[in-house]
């Protein structure tokens, strides 16, 4: 079977404007959630679209797309992969998008209702909709392979990797995958508040005092390649293999957690089986860590059931907030950096561990080759990905 490996990482997140900045901030345990005008959020500080994005594109697109284009540029540079140097059909773009071009959309609806229909700009038709970032990326980099846009809220980042692997197995060797999100415009914040899941105090996954999550912006874009073509072209690094993936749905209630963790467990077990690894081989779990008492308890239960041993559990997203579709993509980037450096990052913003889990309080050494990543989406989506150190180079790099 074709192996799908990650050869490039780009990050635009509250924790930093590159993979290395993000990793340093994560290991240092910096909380990047702050309050402005009474709204707690993980904001991307210092990001300038100018310089990162072509000025003509800036006016045509939302901030969510700016961050996506900037992260893509980084990931391609990191992978030393230039789509223009390859057959245009050899590259695809498969991103997750949870909520689209929020600020752009609010501005245009505002213009319509306060000034009339002539105030709506020509770019509303291409900036707000969920496919905007994928379309712009494909056009900018000249990629003609099969594109896809996955929408499954917080699970989307993992679903994009599952879909990327499917595209690779069907013959397109390179996929730009992952996702970003920019849900901090006033209307998007109000929409999220109505869910009743946001905390007014802070995002503390698995903390005894957890009372909800805090939204954040940003995410990560990854270059995913067929391992064979990556090695033939001499990719400068392989962060790891997307060895397993599975998705399930609770199918219980569209806005209430399931009474049990059966479907999350099933996603984890299926992803492990798909990778051909046993739970004992997993070095740590990157949890979804939704930060509500009920959802954290369900995930803790699922992890205990699947592992039957105190496996180390982390959820560094507590440092940056919950980035909707961008979140799981960023978590995967973090997990790959953890594999590279042999360090498990700590659970973000954890003060009082609240569940019967081996929660990682300080960065600790990682000796294993396999990481399991969980992500859930509002409404009952469960996805799991198994990342494995790439076999040929992995152990040598870890040395």
């Amino acid at each position: 079977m074709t192996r799908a490996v990650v050869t490039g990482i780009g990050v635009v997140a509250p924790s930093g404007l590159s993979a290395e900045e993000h990793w340093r901030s994560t290991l240092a345990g910096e909380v990047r959630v702050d309050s402005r005008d009474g709204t707690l959020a993980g904001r991307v500080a210092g990001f300038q679209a100018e310089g990162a994005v072509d000025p003509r594109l800036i006016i045509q697109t939302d901030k969510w797309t700016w961050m996506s284009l900037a992260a893509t540029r980084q990931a391609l540079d990191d992978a030393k992969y230039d789509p223009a140097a390859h057959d245009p059909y050899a590259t695809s773009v498969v991103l997750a998008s949870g909520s689209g071009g929020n600020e752009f959309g609010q501005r245009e609806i505002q213009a319509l209702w306060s000034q009339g229909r002539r105030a709506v700009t020509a770019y509303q038709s291409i900036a707000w909709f969920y496919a905007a970032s994928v379309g712009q990326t494909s056009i900018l980099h000249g990629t003609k392979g099969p594109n896809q846009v996955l929408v499954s809220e917080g699970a989307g980042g993992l679903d994009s990797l599952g879909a990327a692997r499917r595209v690779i197995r069907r013959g397109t060797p390179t996929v730009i995958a992952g996702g970003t999100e920019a849900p901090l415009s006033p209307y998007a914040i109000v929409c999220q508040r109505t869910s009743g899941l946001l905390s007014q105090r802070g995002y503390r996954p698995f903390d005894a005092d957890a009372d909800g999550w805090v939204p954040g912006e940003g995410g990560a874009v990854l270059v995913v390649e067929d391992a064979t073509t990556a090695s033939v072209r001499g990719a400068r690094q392989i962060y790891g293999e997307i060895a397993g993936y599975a998705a399930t749905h609770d199918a219980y209630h569209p806005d209430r957690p399931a009474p049990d963790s059966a479907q999350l467990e099933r996603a984890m077990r299926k992803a492990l089986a798909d990778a051909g690894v046993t739970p004992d081989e997993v070095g740590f779990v990157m949890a979804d860590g939704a930060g509500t008492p009920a959802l954290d308890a369900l995930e803790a239960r699922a992890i205990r059931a699947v592992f039957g041993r105190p496996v180390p559990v982390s959820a560094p997203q507590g440092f940056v907030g919950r980035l909707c579709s961008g979140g799981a993509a960023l978590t995967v980037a973090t997990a790959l950096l953890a594999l590279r450096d042999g360090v498990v990052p700590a659970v973000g913003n954890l003060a009082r561990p609240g569940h019967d889990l081996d929660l990682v309080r300080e960065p600790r050494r990682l000796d294993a080759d396999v990481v399991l990543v969980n992500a859930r989406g509002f409404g009952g989506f469960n996805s799991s990905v198994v990342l494995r150190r790439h076999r040929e180079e992995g152990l040598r790099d870890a040395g």
Partner: protein
Amino acid sequence: MSRRTVVTGVGVVAPGGVTRSAFWDMLTAGRTATRRITFFDPAEFRSQIAAECDFDPRAAGLTPQEIHRSDRFTQFALAAADEALAESGLDLAAVDRDNLAVSIGSAVGATTRLEDEYVTVSDHGRLWEVEERYGSRFLYQALVPSSAAAEVACRFGAHGPAAVISTGCTSGLDAIGHGHQLIEDGDADVVIAGAADAPISPISMACFDAIRATSARNDDPEHASRPFDATRDGFVMGEGGAVLILEELEHARRRGAEIFCEVGGFANRSNAFHMTGLRPDGLEMAEAITEALDQARLDPTAVSYVNAHGSGTKQNDRHETAAFKRSLGQHAYDVPVSSIKSMVGHSLGAIGAIELAACVLAIRYGVVPPTANLENKDPECDLDYVPKNAREQRIDVALSVGSGFGGFQSAAVLKRWTS
């Protein structure tokens, strides 16, 4: 041993006919459902016409809670899924619901509800810092269109993979293509696959007004959607949804299901050219068609019906005609090509699923739906577009294509099933 996908159920919510049979009656009669917009006063807009659904969610069997929580597009998806499942004869109590998946396409999700609520929380666009206390408790469902897949999964107890696929105007084809791949790859045995959109709202009309993509033939709404006609002046907005029950062949056989047709192939490509512009050569759409036919192991000459994207914009119909010639060769001149958008309008992400539903029915009933309103020959569109009147004809292979903003080009091939 490769896994094959068959279609065992069809459900449709379309303008002019909110059940599958009403939809098919309308298509075969060549009636159009385009009219002056009734959902709001369109007087201010450049395009004041649309193909609206006369849809009553209670009559369609939705629960009061589903109706209260959901935007209209989700309601379309639920109603179409209900009809498709009922028709498939699938016993949900007997089916392995861990392997029952959901794949719903939508281009613009809950845009209508988001706008309606925005008018309230912003006090008619006066406030930028909008007021939360006036908002619906279900605004988060509207913000994240994945809620449509969640609603469908919950209604039917589908524990398999679920997602919304949102690739703009090819969402419907791509969602069904995704469902087909889930079956091929062994990730599901049955997939509730389709699409829905409900974009007849002021912001959607305004944004297409701004780029003059929609028809301004406001004095003659019934004849405004004119694909391939020399006098066409843009697409007419539509709404609706359709769902196909996709099933792994042996699964369908074991339970003795009626098989409508087989999904022979699906492919998508991107033109990497422009968010809204199309090159006249149709190259990437042709690539998608060729790949889909290859997967079905069919020669282009085997295609007996082409369901066109046929949006009725100047550039689309030209682009597509070129793509058919490029991929089907001389056969492009012989095969009937039609656009049902002439009758049901262009419901953005939903239309790909509605058109594929039409292809399933075309194969089953042996009728090619017409292109309504096609009266004046365009020298650049010189194929057989089945003007005005449906044709009775045996159809063994139907090809359906879609093209959308962002450069997306998709193609699906359906084959008559013979045991």
